[in-house]
């Protein structure tokens, strides 16, 4: 997002038709940046309130699921005078292509930001073809 666009909306995560969640908490879709580099793809997600213990990343077949649980800390004895955002858990699901080397995926969390490095499998790396004069 550039400086010009200052709108921030917390997007609610969806569930398939007819399916409900077991817990009453809200679940949001975290904002992500996905950048493809030469040898890997980097996914950065904003998950404020989540640390390495409350984050759950699973990869099943080609589906990557990111789930973060947030401690709903409501100050006791205070009332909410002005509220602009709600607090809830985070969830987002992505489908990875075969190009990702699934055994070497790395994840790190700092200050509520998840950084997932998805290395490209050897087969997917572009090969430069050397041209020789015949």
């Amino acid at each position: 997002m550039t400086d010009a666009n200052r709108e921030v909306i917390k997007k609610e995560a969806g569930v398939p038709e007819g399916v409900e969640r077991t817990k009453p908490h809200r679940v949001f879709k975290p904002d992500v940046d996905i950048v493809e580099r030469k040898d890997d793809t980097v996914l950065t997600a904003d998950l404020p309130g989540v640390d390495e213990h409350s984050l759950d990343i699973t990869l099943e077949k080609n589906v990557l699921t990111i789930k973060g649980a947030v401690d709903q800390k409501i100050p006791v004895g205070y009332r909410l005078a002005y509220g602009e955002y709600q607090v809830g858990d985070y969830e987002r699901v992505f489908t990875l292509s075969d190009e990702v080397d699934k055994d070497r995926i790395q994840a790190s969390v700092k200050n509520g930001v998840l950084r997932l490095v998805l290395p490209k499998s050897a087969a997917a790396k572009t090969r430069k073809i050397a041209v020789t004069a015949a």
Partner: protein
Amino acid sequence: MMLWTDLDRFGFPDPWRAFDRLSSAASGMLASSTSEFPLVNVWMDRDRAIITSELPGVDTKDIDISVAGKSVTLRGSRATEDACEGECQHRRERWSGKFTRSIELPYAVNQDKVEAKFIKGILELTLPRAEADKPRKIAIKTE
């Protein structure tokens, strides 16, 4: 941004339900979801205010908090990581750049006792009311 100064309405059993009730009543207390960044929540008590804001990935050295009288100003910035233009960028949803936010409380703040905590990307500011600004109980003499 002026806060609704009604300090007598206590006893919301479930603060989050206040959100739902207010958004359905379309009252002015719940800001529209497209507010200025960063989004803040303000919790109040008679003597203290707690302001929370979600600032994931911002370094504490990039956050500047200043308090003057009744107003609190929050300034900061976040840079994009792995910047790249064009084809290589699949998605760019996260915000970046500078932000400034000012909040005016209904009472003057005791500047020496302000506390700020930054945990897991959430900033929590505790602002106690200035002693001089606290209401004094007035004793009634009966003749």
